[in-house]
């Protein structure tokens, strides 16, 4: 068995275990919190008899293990179940939202990567100079900006004043693709600002610490140009930790989009998750959570593979050292 194959198998195994654990935890969590889906559905005026009848119909009167394994069985045969509150198949409800959330996350991710890596290196140049001072303040400010606030600012600025997009009126990918992309782009801007700030800071710190290392001193003392050393050696070495961080960011973005989705009116997965939790709509919540878990592991794997591409040392100890590290 080759190293690559072993690596893939290991990853797939990790993926399965993670999803299984996450789904079990979701079921357990609902078991522990108060709130009965049947009662939530029927509202304040339902009689006890009606609540019990609905509980029976929804199989909520069955033991926990039976419900969980039934769900698991359904999941592996491609049946995500029926939503409690909408009384429709779960997959039909979430598929359209999944693509929006993924698109939103990917646009944010591209923005973060394209902007923060050059900016991080650039900001290293100002270290210790007077110009570095406003940069630090700006960076701190951006990191502290909560997305709901940037969401309001961006909606107001670009939506109401400049009218580049219409907050609250998401056109839908099928109806107006470019309009939808524009809408998502502004959502992605709100989402990426604090993360760009974080990545820049991290990039800069790594570059500084690399620049102080012996090999850089040696390279420069051998007459190499400082800038050339930076791009040829330092950057490459710094990227490893940044890529790991970006992998985490990619995983986080899906969840972080909730507030932006709400403020800008993007019908994504995050909003749906929040609503479904408060409705105690277990089938929907379980499905979304498992999809998110899948996404997180996938992002970790991608980061891992890229890191290995950049740094051959990691390749030698495949799997053993890095596994799960990025997830």
């Amino acid at each position: 068995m080759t190293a690559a194959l072993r690596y893939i198998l290991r990853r797939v195994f990790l993926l399965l275990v993670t999803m299984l654990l996450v789904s079990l935890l979701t079921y357990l969590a609902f078991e522990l919190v108060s709130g009965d889906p049947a009662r939530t559905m029927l509202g304040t005026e339902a009689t006890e008899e009606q609540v019990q009848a609905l509980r029976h119909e929804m199989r909520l009167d069955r033991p926990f293990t039976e419900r969980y394994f039934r769900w698991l069985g359904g999941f592996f045969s491609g049946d995500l179940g029926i939503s409690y509150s909408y009384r429709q198949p779960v997959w039909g409800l979430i598929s359209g939202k999944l693509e929006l959330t993924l698109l939103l996350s990917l646009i944010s991710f591209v923005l973060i990567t394209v902007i923060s890596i050059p900016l991080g290196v650039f900001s290293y140049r100002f270290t210790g100079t007077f110009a570095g001072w406003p940069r630090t303040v700006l960076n701190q400010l951006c990191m502290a900006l909560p997305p709901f606030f940037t969401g309001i600012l961006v909606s107001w600025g670009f939506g109401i004043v400049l009218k580049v997009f219409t907050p609250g009126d998401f056109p839908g990918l099928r109806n107006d693709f470019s309009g939808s992309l524009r809408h998502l782009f502004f959502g992605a801007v709100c989402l990426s600002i604090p993360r760009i700030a974080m990545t820049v800071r991290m990039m800069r710190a790594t570059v500084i610490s690399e620049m102080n290392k012996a090999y850089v001193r040696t390279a420069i003392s051998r007459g190499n140009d400082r800038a050339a050393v930076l791009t040829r050696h330092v950057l490459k070495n710094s990227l490893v930790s940044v890529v790991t961080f970006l992998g985490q960011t990619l995983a986080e973005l899906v969840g972080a989009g909730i507030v932006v989705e709400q403020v800008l009116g993007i019908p994504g997965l995050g909003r749906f998750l929040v609503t479904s939790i408060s409705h105690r709509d277990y089938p929907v919540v379980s499905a979304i959570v498992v999809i998110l878990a899948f996404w997180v592991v996938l992002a970790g794997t991608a980061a891992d593979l890229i890191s290995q591409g950049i740094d051959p040392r990691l390749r030698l100890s495949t799997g053993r050292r890095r596994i799960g590290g990025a997830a």
Partner: protein
Amino acid sequence: MKKTILALTLVLALLLAGCGGAPAATPAPSATPAPSAAPSEAPAGNAAETAPEADEATAAASPRAAANEISIGIAQDFDSLDPDYMTAAGTKEVLFNVFEGLVKPNSDGDIVPAVASEVVKSEDGLNYMFTLRDGVKFHNGDPVEMEDVLYSVERRWKGEDTAAQLAALSVIDSLSADGNVLTITLSEPSNEFLAAVMNAYILPADYDKQETSPVGTGPYRFVSRTVQDSLVLERFPDYWGTPGRLDKVTFKILESADGLVLGLQSGALDLVAHLSSDQTVQLDQDEFNIAEGSMNLVQALYLNNAEKPFDDVRVRQALCWAVDKQAVIDLAFDGYGIPLGTSMFPSFSKYYDESLTDYYTPDPEKAKALLAEAGYPDGFEMTITVPSNYTPHVNTATVLVELLREVGVKATVQPVDWGTWLEEVYSNRKFQSTVTGLTSDNLTARKLLERFGTEVSNNFTNYSNEEYDEILAKALRTADDAEQTELYRQLERNLTENAANVYLQDMADLVAVRKGLDGLTFYPLYVLDVSTLGWTA
């Protein structure tokens, strides 16, 4: 001076609370009361009109004006569209335009014929004869037949699906059809029967796709729905009554309070109901009219009467003396709202006893004296459990904490999510106190008063008063309207005198309407009638 400091503290507290970034929702109680009333005793809807006049057809009018359509923002998603499973008040509010019963409510709170053209009640009150209206069509084009009517009423009365049954229809003894006349025989006379019939929507017999494409007989028909995004309705051209004015109505779901305001400002939305005063002040007065109605609910600090120290009437009265309702309205609602003193609001003018509102005037000294008498000279600690998604209730609780501090009561606010509130507070009654609004999608006073009877299953406050139970039993037994009204008024007084709860207000319903749009009609029910809305030419 002291008041100013108090006010400042509260404003600060509210600001901080607002920063929590919780997905704010306008108060759309997920309650589902089944309305009930006889046509004769309908409350005069004093909130029934208030249509914002469109002074000019502004140039800034919505782009949708030309297409004769509008877009309405709502703060929560719809639940099931199947009328049998529709429980969220926000869903019923909108689907009111799609479904109709044999009878339906009008904006004055009267019950008027709908799918039936005439309703005759027998002398003894046991038989109701409904004559089917000629030419009523379902949205799918089929005519409404007696078979459909029997099917529709029967399933809500004693259908196999228990969850879909309407408790208020259980007084039915039998149904019989003769030509186009449906006779419903009751086992005992009931003043609330017609209102229950109102909620048994007429649906095509054996049509099983209500969930995904609902079919009714109302002025608007269903076009499409995207979960957590939007619902589209269009005018039903074959409607039997006054047709709707707009061709198409889109409901957009935006849970975030800021999102709704941004949607109005950006032109994405033309109308949003149930706004808070701080949302409306952000809107440009040249672009929007703000119509003020009332929510028709009783907002109160509901006390668990079985729990110490609220099992002592003196403690409850002390809280009533301590709480300045107007201060709550001013500080948490910018002055919008009607103070209440009992479990009844002004829309039910016949039953509403205004003199009870000022039964307790703010008097901290009296409150302290009563507390000392009850054995709490130094006050006590209490918890106010609130559903966190209803910002107005959370804000109210925050103000109450400050007001109660003045008499030495240390209250803390415990926000819980709606599901937990429903389970712990409402069903299991495991709470000390809570702020919520009890609704009345009910055209009689019954739902508001019946729930305080000792043995009643939804008496979540555990109020127990012998005199109250006696009057209540008498009131429910009598078929005489005048007598029943008098008994209901006695019940209200009983609740106030025994300080069952700290009654606060009937919350204002602020609706932002884009200029150029008129015909907004308030009902004494939680419904949004889009058929009267239209753009002025």
